[in-house]
């Protein structure tokens, strides 16, 4: 992967405790799965930043390569990839996500 792109991704995920790569904007998700993750993070009152991967084809391809994860949304906590919509939903339903944010 292009070093500059990798640096750009790492800046985003490391400078924000919770970071979400999604389709669309936080207040206007363009996909139901992205919307679901935004809803969960809002529900937990978590401060998070987002990047709209539909706005940048290079970042869109690079993030998938970075995490070896083929789909969006993608959630990062403290620079670490946590999961997509299914995992975030499962963790939320089981109370694990709440614990993760309490800890951090």
């Amino acid at each position: 992967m292009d070093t500059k792109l990798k640096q750009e991704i790492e800046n985003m995920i490391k400078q924000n405790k919770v970071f979400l790569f999604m389709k669309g904007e936080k207040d206007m998700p363009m996909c139901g799965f992205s919307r679901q993750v935004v809803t969960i993070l809002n529900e937990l009152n978590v401060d998070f930043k987002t990047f709209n991967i539909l706005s940048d084809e290079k970042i869109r391809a690079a993030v998938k390569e970075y995490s070896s994860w083929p789909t969006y949304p993608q959630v990062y906590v403290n620079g670490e990839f946590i999961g997509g919509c299914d995992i975030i939903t499962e963790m939320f339903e089981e109370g694990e996500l709440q614990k993760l944010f309490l800890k951090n």
Partner: protein
Amino acid sequence: MHTCKSVQESIEKFLVGSNVKVVNPRGDDVHFSAEVEWRGFESLSRVEQHKKVYAAFNNNFSECGMPLHALQIKCKLPEIKNTK
């Protein structure tokens, strides 16, 4: 074109011994939801478990369009059955 059956077969063929249920919740042949039960998930993290399932499709997701638009995944370990 994917069907529930083709999605199921792709996963079962790739994760040998898995038990897979696939539904097409919106009836549109592009959004699928799979429940995958496989012993091989043991000791893997959630992310690693899901990656195993994605690998059955060579990570070949178009996100919007073919070949596979959306696959919701639920990974489970098989229940240990009491064999007397």
